[in-house]
């Protein structure tokens, strides 16, 4: 796609404050359990017991802020039986709540956990890339809320040329399934997707 909007995330400077997550939740007044943007804490390593002293051994952790990746290959759109999910000319993937039947099939298909069921409206919802703001030339709420300036948006090709082509760091999946419109500057301890030695440290209720 010549024209594809994309998220940029700088994992090397994210401090895990969740301002992005809360800005999103606030703007869309999302109900309990629905988080279009989520911040994962990922870490690993262990402790060695040497001469009666606990010593950290390769202990690491870093944060990954993630939302819908508005993928080049949006499996959610392909599998939706109701044709409720569409991809705009600018690459933004949207769910039409009037067409959604609430079967949650897209939830099974998306490796980013982006489509989430709204128990109040009984249909699937997900990150809209703040298409309303973007249509006015503004940036999404999460991007503007980021205190460390580690979230941004841009044209996918431009972002790749500027920051490189990393999309797969733990706990995110590899990009092979959906080809996400995502560009990441990895944290220095980042582990490649599928080869992680650590685990998600966030409480399940948080993400």
């Amino acid at each position, binding site marked *: 796609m010549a024209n594809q909007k994309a998220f940029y995330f700088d994992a090397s400077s994210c401090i895990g404050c969740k301002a992005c997550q809360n800005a999103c939740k606030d703007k869309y007044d999302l109900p309990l359990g629905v988080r279009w943007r*989520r911040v*994962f804490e990922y870490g690993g390593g262990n402790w060695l017991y040497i001469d009666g002293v606990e010593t950290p051994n390769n202990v690491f952790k870093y944060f990954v802020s*993630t939302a819908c990746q508005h993928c080049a290959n949006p*499996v959610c759109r*392909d*599998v*939706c*039986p*109701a*044709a*409720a999910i569409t991809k705009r000319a600018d690459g933004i993937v949207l769910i039409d709540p009037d*067409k*959604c*039947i*609430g*079967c*949650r*099939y897209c939830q*099974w*298909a*998306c*490796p*980013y*956990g982006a489509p989430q*069921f709204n128990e109040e*409206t*009984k*249909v*699937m919802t997900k990150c809209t890339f703040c298409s309303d703001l973007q249509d006015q030339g503004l940036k999404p709420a999460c991007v503007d809320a980021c205190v460390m300036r580690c979230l941004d948006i841009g044209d996918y090709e431009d972002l790749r040329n500027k920051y490189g082509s990393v999309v797969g760091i733990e*706990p*995110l*999946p590899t990009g092979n*399934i959906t080809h996400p419109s995502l560009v990441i500057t990895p944290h220095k301890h980042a582990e490649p997707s*599928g080869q992680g030695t650590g685990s*998600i440290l966030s409480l399940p209720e948080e*993400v």
Partner: protein
Amino acid sequence: MNARDWALITFTILVQMSVGSIWVLGVAHFLATRKYGAEEADRLSDRALLALVPVIALGFIASLLHLGNPFNAYRAVTNLGSSWLSREIFFGVIFAVLAFVFALLQWRKIGPTILRTVIAWLAALDGLVLVFSMSNVYMLQAQPAWNSWATPVSFFATTFLLGALAMGAAFVANYAYLQRKKADCAEAQCTLMRGTLRWIAVAAVVLVGLELVVLPIYLASVAGGSAAGLASVKLLTGLFGWLLVLRVILAFVGAGVFAIFLYQNAMSAGHEKMLGNLAYAAFVIVLVAEVLGRVLFYAAHVRIGI
């Protein structure tokens, strides 16, 4: 397990059982016609066919219960181009309509035999496409526990195993009914029922053998495939291990041990009462085993990613 999972378990099990039943009825009717003529064959299978109508209806009603917005359910066939779920519903509705029409025409003997035969064939063939579509619904790249050759193999095994044993139970019920009504067809029907049950017993043993062979190969291949796959296998052998063991034992007892007794008792006349009890028991035990298998299917899938 939430209500939504139970809706899908009910839907997939009942619809698969119905597809298998249509095939078993077709084969039984065909063989019975060759031996005793169309009238005796109809007497064997017509009531069993009619019993399928509420089963299919219940399956589709259950499928609606997992939707957040069932009023939009008609939209479920609007993405046939790329969604296997759309295709599943499409072929499912065709199957239900063909099966209902066939059951009605066959029951009231409306229209020429050839027309009814054609409709029955269409329903049976569409049923195979339906079970194939159902399998593909789950073969998502992000779901290693489902994205396996074992999904279609086990769905088809369930289809024919439950179809065979459900119809076995229906045939003995039909025979008991005919006896109560003192119908003058007892001897031919008795021979037909025993012959059919022997074939059903053989099919059950073969299919449960297939299931038991597939299981360890499946677990090994999924465990070795990815971290999410390994997590699924750990659930199946750890937290849900007791359910898996129970499911295997019940399948072995119902479709193995009971099927062999069924075969032996169907060899000669005079054991009809025993035969009936065995056929009912085998069906109920295997139904529970297959439902448990489907419970595990929905309980132990771990998605790749977050």
